[in-house]
């Protein structure tokens, strides 16, 4: 099957130019942009809750045109450096999703919950830049969007296989594509000159024990992913809750009480987020 040759998959992922997002988020953002009282910070804050627009903004600011490749990971900073006109221009090129809309909604909620959980964990661990973890949590599954976009039919097959066999989606992806979404995401992030830490976390969030440069940050996103699945926020392609990687667990060394507090705060934040972004 030539179409699923690994080199073909890689080149079609690297060719992606525009990513699809959810209509509600886009509509709200366009409305904010029309309001003259909206500040650059408001826009940055709003965007940092949407994985697709965040990806677009980071891609633009890290592109050779602006000349600081691989340096900016914060959406707020990116928005200040790009300016509102460029952000508006980016939104014109965001396509709105209709196909597999339900899956995209589920993935959006999963990603947002992971962003919140990662930030809370980073704070608990006393990391200097909790926003870095938040963005990594938001974008960890961006490879799924890439695969859905380029291979929608196959991806639907992978999802129904995962469902029937009750296996994780990453295993079903591997069967079909020979790679999983983590690799797909890593390719895309590399191609778009994302900061090193983001590339590594996206690529290794299912095998945090072999992350070389950012083991703590990768472990955070790994654990956040599992907690969010366990807690049942969103839908990441399958209904399984994979085991926690032992090395990551030991490295983070969180107490039961820490986890309880994180889950409690996550629940409050998700309630607010749904109100703000979806309804």
């Amino acid at each position: 099957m030539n179409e699923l040759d690994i080199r073909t998959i890689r080149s079609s992922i690297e060719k992606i130019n525009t990513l699809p997002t959810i209509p509600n988020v886009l509509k709200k953002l366009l409305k904010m942009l029309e309001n003259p009282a909206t500040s650059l910070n408001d826009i940055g804050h709003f965007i940092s809750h949407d994985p697709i627009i965040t990806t677009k903004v980071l891609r633009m600011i890290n592109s050779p045109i602006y000349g600081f490749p691989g340096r900016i990971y914060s959406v707020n900073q990116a928005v200040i450096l790009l300016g509102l006109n460029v952000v508006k221009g980016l939104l014109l090129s965001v396509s709105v999703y209709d196909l597999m809309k339900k899956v995209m909604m589920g993935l959006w909620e999963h990603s947002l919950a992971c962003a919140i959980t990662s930030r809370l964990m980073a704070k608990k661990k006393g990391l200097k830049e909790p926003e870095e973890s938040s963005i990594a949590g938001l974008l960890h599954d961006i490879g799924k969007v890439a695969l859905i976009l380029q291979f929608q039919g196959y991806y639907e097959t992978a999802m129904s296989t995962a469902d029937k066999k009750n296996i994780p989606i990453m295993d079903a992806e591997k069967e079909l594509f020979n790679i999983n979404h983590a690799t797909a995401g890593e390719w895309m992030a590399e191609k778009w000159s994302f900061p090193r830490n983001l590339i590594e976390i996206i690529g290794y969030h299912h095998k945090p024990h072999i992350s070389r440069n950012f083991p703590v940050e990768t472990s955070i996103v790994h654990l956040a992913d599992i907690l969010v699945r366990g807690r049942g926020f969103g839908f990441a392609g399958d209904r399984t809750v994979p085991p926690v990687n032992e090395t990551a667990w030991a490295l983070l060394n969180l107490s039961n009480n820490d986890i309880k507090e994180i889950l409690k705060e996550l629940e409050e934040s998700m309630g607010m987020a749904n109100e703000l972004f979806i309804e």
Partner: protein
Amino acid sequence: MQKIVLITEDAHVKEKTEKVLAHSFELICLTDIKSIFSFLYDSIPVVVIVDIQNCDDYTFDAINQIKSDPIFGSISFIALIFDNDNLPESERVFIDDYLKIKDIESDLAFRIRLSIHRSKRLNEINPLTRLPGNISIDREIHNRLLNREEFAIAYADLDNFKPFNDRYGFGRGDEVIKATGRLILNIVKNKQPSGSFVGHIGGDDFVYMMNYDSIEDASKEIINAFEIIIPTFYDIEDRERGFIESTDRQGNKRLFPLMTISIGITHNRYIQFTHYGEIKETASKMKTYAKTFKGSCFKIDERQIRN
């Protein structure tokens, strides 16, 4: 080869244009203005030709958005029209030239060469930040004084930029200059979308002009953004330590704090200036005064002299 983008849905127009341009330029054909944004991520064309035979406000918005960003300021936009009747008002859309579709074969190649030359001549810009340079800054001040406009002018410059450059090299120094130019531009334009001006004198010196009532808020925001963004250009160890080791002008090793920004502001609300040199000198003095304070700050000329 220089790149030219053609946006048209008309196969006939596309074919004609290809025939004229394909051997001297790299021609990229798109059917929809939306797709140009993804294209602009990777490279900047010299000219964009837009077929506006039957296009909507949306297309004009997109053109204006591209044209209003100095990064893309050097791109010329040529509109293709069916006849003179459907030319949009020039105040509403920033196009640089137009051509009737029937004249593509005879005139397009020549018009494009003219556009490229004109854009080189008109854009006296700093190659690093793509902001207007000294000649444009002086002209802007001069015109404002001539029109008796009330305005405020700020001079901004970085503290401890040289040791940063020495420690990390020019490449990273350039990144800091670009980031500073961008953040000043975006904050000023966001606070006051029309009638504001941002220029780059050179090195680590910038100028911005705004209404007297907006400049204080904008300056506060610039300082905030600077203090958040610029430290990320240091290596993490240096940033956490809060200083770097580098050599001073005498060649001695010394410790230098992280970069900050000093801004001096003057205005003609209460003070009269007649010559652009005079107001520039005052703004520059205010900046020197701001630099005597530790850390980032702005200082406004508070004299109230009426001549």
